[in-house]
């Protein structure tokens, strides 16, 4: 269970998250939607432990532990996974090495035996097949020269290998054509399980045609301004984000149905 309470975060003295509350129960998939600049990616980065953001107030409780007290690598080992909006290219580090280093770091932490080269290869090849990645990507530098779709598949591959308890997908749909989107969504759906929670951050509704969320939240100006079921996403698709901003201009957080155009 993840409980975010009154989270405030800033970068370079600028407040981005301004009192965000969110609860995600085990096994649930929550979608967070919102216009550009609403703080979606900041939320993802703060959860993953990026130090460039300063948490100025609030708390994040994860199964009784203070998530914000852990450095990024410990969060990852404890089972948090962030699928990056812009996966980083690392020239000179092969994808195979990177994946193995990551998987074994996590397995060590969980008290599982580290994979040897053969076991690791057979495991990774099976997962690659599932996300439609060719084996040659193992021997290329991490994300270097990968297309947008290939980078996102590589993120889903890492998620599958690391078996997180909580996965945060930051605009995993951006820059994908519909076929790539389906493959990525299938990869995500395969990983849905009662022990695994997911936060799917997206600007567009269309991803939610393929990854059906339990709950949808609308983020605006650093706060969750509305929460609802899947139908909320469809509403946003129909009316855009304009009405939220208009409502925010009035009473913050009180986006009422009547304020919609």
């Amino acid at each position, binding site marked *: 269970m993840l409980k975010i309470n009154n989270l405030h975060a800033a970068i370079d003295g600028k407040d981005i998250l301004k009192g965000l509350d969110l609860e995600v129960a085990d096994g649930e998939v929550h979608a967070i939607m919102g216009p550009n600049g609403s703080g979606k990616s900041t939320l993802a980065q703060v959860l993953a432990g990026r130090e460039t953001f300063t948490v100025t107030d609030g708390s994040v409780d994860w199964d009784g532990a203070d998530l914000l007290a852990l*450095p990024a690598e410990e969060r990852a080992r404890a089972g948090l996974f962030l699928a990056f909006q812009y996966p980083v290219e690392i*020239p000179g580090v092969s994808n195979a090495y990177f994946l193995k280093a990551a998987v074994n770091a*996590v397995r060590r932490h969980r008290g599982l035996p580290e994979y040897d080269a053969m076991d690791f290869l057979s495991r990774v090849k099976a997962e690659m097949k599932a996300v439609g990645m060719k084996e040659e990507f193992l021997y290329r530098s991490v994300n270097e020269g990968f297309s947008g779709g290939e980078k996102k598949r590589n993120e889903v591959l890492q998620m599958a290998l690391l078996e997180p308890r909580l996965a945060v997908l930051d605009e995993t749909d951006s820059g994908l054509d519909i076929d790539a989107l389906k493959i990525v969504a299938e990869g995500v759906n395969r990983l849905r399980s009662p022990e695994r929670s997911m936060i799917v951050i997206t600007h567009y509704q269309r991803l939610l045609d393929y990854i059906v969320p339990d709950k949808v939240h609308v983020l605006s100006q650093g706060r969750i301004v509305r929460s609802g079921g899947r139908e909320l996403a469809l509403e946003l698709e129909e009316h855009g984000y304009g009405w939220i901003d208009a409502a925010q201009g009035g009473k913050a957080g009180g986006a009422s149905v009547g304020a919609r155009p």
Partner: protein
Amino acid sequence: MSAIDFWLGRHRDTAAGLPGADLPWLVRLREDAIDRFADEGWPTTRRENWRHTSLAFMAQQALAVREAVAPETVVAALRARYQAARGAAQDAAQQGAKSAPQSAPGSAPELAPELAHNDGHWVVFVDGHFAPALSAIGGLPGGVRIGSLADALAQTPEKVEAAFGQAGDGEAPAALNAALAADGAWIRLARGSMVEAPIHLVFIAATAADQHLRNLVVADAGAQATIVEHYPAGAAGSTLTTAVTRVLAAQDSHVTHLKLQQEAPEAIHLATIEAEQARGAVFTSHSLSFGARLARNDIRTRLAGEGAEALLNGLYHADGRRHVDHHTRIDHARPQGTSREFYRGLLDGSARGVFTGRILVAQDAQRTDAMQRCDNLLLSRLAEADARPELEIYADDVKCAHGATVGQLDEDALFYLRSRGVDAVHARQLLTYAFAAEVLERIAHAPLRALGRAALLERLPEGARLEELL
């Protein structure tokens, strides 16, 4: 003391006993050289080519061995490392062949010829003198001669004279070398000959506080060879190595030179590599500089014939208070030459790395294509890097590009790795290694590339941990 008078005395006392002391041209050359050294003295930063590296301290520096090493142990360890590197390269090739999508199922993986071959020709020098008992030159193709300079001076002095160089060549330390060097490698490659396995030259400071080596490589038309200069850690203490390697590459010859400098932490290492390339000759220099308190490499090549190609590739690592300087110069003298120059530096502690890349394009050298890059990674706040391109272009139809960077590890990449559970220390190491490994990728010979990689990992903290995963 290493003051000028000390070296004048050394020349006076030893000149008559040096190999070739009966050759008037060489006696004169040695005298001219020591005169020049006396004249110029140890270079200071007042000299243009030494702006960031001063040897002024040498005048007060006592050279002394604190703890000698047994050369046979050093050679055995080096050969074992090379064997291990060959094994690693072989494994990688087999794995690559297995996983390559185009290989038909059940087909045996094919090994590159350099992997199937023996481990090369080993020529060992101890304290500046050829050590036949530690060497294993092995069988050679017809027309190829690999031996000691001292022997060559006795047997074919006129051939040595043509390749020896002049007292005025290079910088002051090269003049000191010309005056004092008693030995070095003599490699002659006859027309069209090809030496498949690397020719390993090993220079060990075992008990002497100074050693001076002069290596001459004469490659006739179309000849091909790979020559490796190893400077493994020898005696502990303040020691001095001067080395001059000259490569004469005739038409269409291919000479690859790799230098792996891993001298002991208090050593002073002053080296020159000079090549002269005839029409269509291809010269490659890989300089891996990992050891010594102060290492200076003057690397120069002259593209003296049309269509010659040069690659100067280098990697240096220094930590503590160590200093490493590469001063390179590429002379494009004739048309249609191509040169590529790539250097990378890793600087930690309060170390300093210096790179100067001089490229001269003569008026006659039309359609020259030259590219140079130097990138430095500073691993601590006190480390320092200076990268200076110097382009002098007198021709009008040329392509010349250069770039230099000094930076730190990429924070985005560090976070990406950490977000996957890799701890910060390991993430830093991995990115540091990856930055450096790009230089190693240009070493075409797989076992030598693996040897360079092992040497790099030795320099990185917890390198062994990286190694098991790579």
